[in-house]
């Protein structure tokens, strides 16, 4: 029996949330707008209309490239990619072919989801591996086809929305690795604030390329020697699965494909090079079209847009906008704040959460009594709502962590004294002016020098007053 080694690469599309579209002034946010109302001559591809590139989108692509440790090409250009499809207004998509904005990067991932809780630094390192990023480029999104009974309608509201394509090398060997990578990438994109990367809305879309090759590892003693595997030649086919809109479905699609392809290979056949779709309900992939070869696209430099020339200090200026990325933040939370790895992981998944955590720590820092891990516990276990203002969070935290101790004997005696020395107020209370009790509460609080909770004071007072009646 032959062992097969999965060879998986990824194409990820992320819609940028710039104010305007990639090549015109229409809003990039097309959600919920009536069909074809968010359009203009440029994104409709009307005769004579010309594209003018969105500087912000270019800047953000550079930012993504740097976040993924890519080399930024100082000269880049747009190209036309030709194919006919009704949602493609010009008969070509403006994309980038041989001179993308960013190339040759990498992203570190943990090999197994279960290993994210490993706290020992050394064994953690061993579980990490770098996924190489082939390229990050910028292009325009297409319109959308809307199928209504036997008719198909075209909505161009999405046409021309900036779309960043991130392509990895075929460095994944399991569906789990892909899922971990995608989650990390998703986190990074959201950290950068350049996209909502919302899979349900389709602002992040994933296309795995999947194939199998004969496993050479059985001949290699060190199972972790991945570099050996990478130098092996790739299989002579690949299957691309399109339009998957959740990490879970990516995993399911890959697992299904690996099984399907293995069965074909076992029969001595080669799987067809094609594009397949994923049926979420049945959890199977199905054929869509045989893959168009890259050479059918007739790429050539977009003559309407002059080449992009980046100055080094422009790149540096963009790079300086890079926030601390989740990986670095996680390390800092573990190493400097002493958080448990798993907790640090949870806190760094959304930048807003991490920022909130640090805002709370900053305020607490002045009081010096609470350990970061204690704060993390409160936040993660939702003991205190993170919807509170950090100041209020801290107040609550202090109350929870350092509850007030009340001398009940003293309280009982104080309540007695106050009732006795305020007969008029007591009379008012008894005649139905229930608010009068608040005066008494105030008096008791003052006597107790605040070392008691208001709730308890009211309870005690009511008890006594009722008793007297």
């Amino acid at each position, binding site marked *: 029996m032959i062992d097969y080694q999965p060879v998986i690469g990824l194409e990820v599309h992320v819609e940028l949330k710039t104010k305007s579209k990639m090549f015109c002034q229409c809003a990039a946010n097309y959600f919920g707008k009536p069909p074809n109302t968010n359009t203009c001559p440029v994104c409709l591809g009307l005769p004579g209309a010309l594209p003018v590139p969105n500087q912000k989108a270019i800047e953000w692509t550079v930012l993504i490239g740097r976040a993924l440790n890519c080399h930024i090409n100082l000269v880049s250009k747009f190209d036309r990619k030709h194919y006919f499809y*009704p949602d493609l207004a010009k008969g070509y998509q403006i994309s980038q072919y041989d001179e993308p904005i960013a190339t040759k990067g990498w992203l570190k991932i943990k090999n197994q989801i279960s290993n994210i809780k490993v706290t020992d630094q050394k064994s953690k390192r061993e579980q990490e591996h770098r996924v190489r990023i082939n390229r990050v480029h910028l292009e325009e999104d297409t319109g959308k086809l809307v199928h209504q009974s036997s008719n198909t309608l075209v909505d161009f509201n999405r046409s021309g929305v900036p779309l960043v394509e991130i392509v990895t090398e075929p460095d994944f060997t399991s569906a789990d690795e892909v899922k971990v990578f995608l989650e990390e990438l998703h986190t990074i994109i959201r950290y950068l604030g350049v996209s909502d990367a919302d899979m349900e809305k389709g602002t992040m879309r994933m296309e795995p390329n999947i194939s199998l090759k004969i496993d050479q590892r059985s001949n290699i003693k060190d199972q972790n020697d991945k570099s050996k595997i990478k130098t092996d030649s790739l299989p002579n086919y690949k299957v691309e699965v399109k339009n998957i809109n959740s990490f879970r479905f990516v995993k399911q699609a890959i697992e299904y494909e690996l099984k399907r392809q293995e069965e074909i290979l076992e029969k001595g056949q080669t799987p067809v090079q094609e594009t397949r779709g994923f049926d979420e309900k049945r959890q199977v992939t199905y054929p869509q079209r045989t893959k168009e070869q890259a050479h059918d696209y007739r790429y050539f430099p977009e003559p309407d847009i002059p080449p992009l020339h980046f100055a080094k200090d422009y790149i540096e200026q963009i790079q300086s906008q890079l926030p601390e990325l989740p990986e670095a933040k996680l390390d800092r939370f573990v190493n400097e704040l002493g958080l448990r790895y798993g907790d640090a992981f949870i806190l760094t998944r959304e930048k807003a959460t991490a920022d909130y955590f640090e805002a709370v720590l900053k305020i607490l820092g002045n009081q010096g009594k609470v350990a970061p891990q204690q704060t993390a516990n409160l936040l993660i276990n939702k003991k205190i709502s993170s919807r509170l203002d950090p100041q209020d969070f801290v107040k609550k935290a202090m109350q929870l962590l350092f509850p007030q101790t009340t001398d009940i004997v003293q309280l009982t005696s104080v309540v007695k004294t106050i009732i006795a020395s305020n007969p008029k107020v007591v009379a008012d209370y008894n005649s139905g002016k229930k608010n009068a009790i608040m005066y008494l509460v105030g008096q008791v609080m003052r006597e107790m020098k605040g070392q008691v909770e208001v709730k308890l004071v009211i309870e005690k007072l009511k008890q006594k007053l009722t008793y007297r009646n």
Partner: protein
Amino acid sequence: MEVLGKSLLELKALVDEKKIKTEEIFHYFLQRIKKYDPKLKAFMTVVDRDRSGLPIAVKDNYCTKSVRTTASSKVLDDYLPQYESTVTEKLWKNGFSLLGKTNMDAWAHGASTETSDYMLTKNPWDLTRYPGGSSGGSAAALSAYLTPAAMGSDTGGSIRHPAAWCGVVGLKPTYGRVSRYGLISMGSSFDCPGPMTLTVKDNAYLLGLLAGKDRFDATTTNTAIPDYVKNLDTPQRFIIGLAESYFENVDNEIKSRLNQTITVLKKLGHQIKPVKILSPKYAISVYTVLQRSEVSSNLSRYDGVRYANGRHFFGAEAKRRTMLGTYSLSYGYYDAFYKRAQKVRTLVINNFLAIFRDVDLIIGPNTPVTALKIGEFEKYPFFGEIMDALNEPASVAGIPAISLPIGLDRQGLPIGMQIMGNYFREDLILNLAHQFEQETEFFGVIKKGIERYQ
């Protein structure tokens, strides 16, 4: 008030001095169109919706909001643009009103208007001859004084060629000098909107209005815009390059007329200097490959989903160009055709840049022959390329060039001369052209052309 033959700026002066109303001028030209256009067939659409400005005719590949725009192709048969091109927008903002849209080769593919899906425009000098093209409708309308000025577009000679054959002034500005936004794309890296006029001064005036950076066209630049009209008041002395390679296969009568012109230029104090320019044949090859490639791409949006008519309405020339362009861009052929052509394009550019270190301007013929008889097209495969052989180098390099009438041949047909300049030196081209006009009145060509249509 006698309007016949008045230049655009003369008419403008009369309007400014309130000696005539624009309505009267409009009426005058509409009457002339009514009288002569049934024979000439210069106009696709005549427009009478606003007479508040000076009339101007516009080639039918400029998008004019709510006015039928076809690029003379049946694919866009009933197309009403929802937006205005930058060029026409600027015209309406500067005191012009649309008189009509002029016939052209479909999609600007040709040098005769013969590929128009609607009709063939006739040469006003001889109705049995081509007007040249692709801006043939604009050139013919102007030559017969059916409009005081017209807009053309020049991808590989489409302004200069019909200007030469119809005996008018036609300028192809530097690529990127005038916005292409709203001009239906033909060869995107070559397309240049430009004015066609009866005088050099009119041309300078229109260029001044139209030049400049446009936020809707990323290929326009911030290069300073000189006062082209005022610049004409100060005649400059130039070193003028003359290239032997531009006289190969050129008709003898055109050559001798050009020599006569050179004598005039020398008399005016200019120095003529022989220069070595790459043979135009290289530019033709480069132009053919790149333009076809861009055409195949630009026409792919007319896929039958959105516009009036489907792909089977494309004429033979559009289909030929699409086929050749698709081939040039195909995998396995891209390097041999498109990529190599781009490399040679760089050589052509460098060649011109080197020459413009030694000379201010370059002159030469711009058509190998004068207007051909209708039907002669068939004798010339690659008709357009042969007719535009002398025009295409400037298009490939993206430098500005003008065509001026310099006389008539024995058959009484206009002969054109081309002046090419360095990037963004339209001011120098216009300065020399104006001096020549002042000295010779184009040997009476423009005047004679108009007088044929009293």
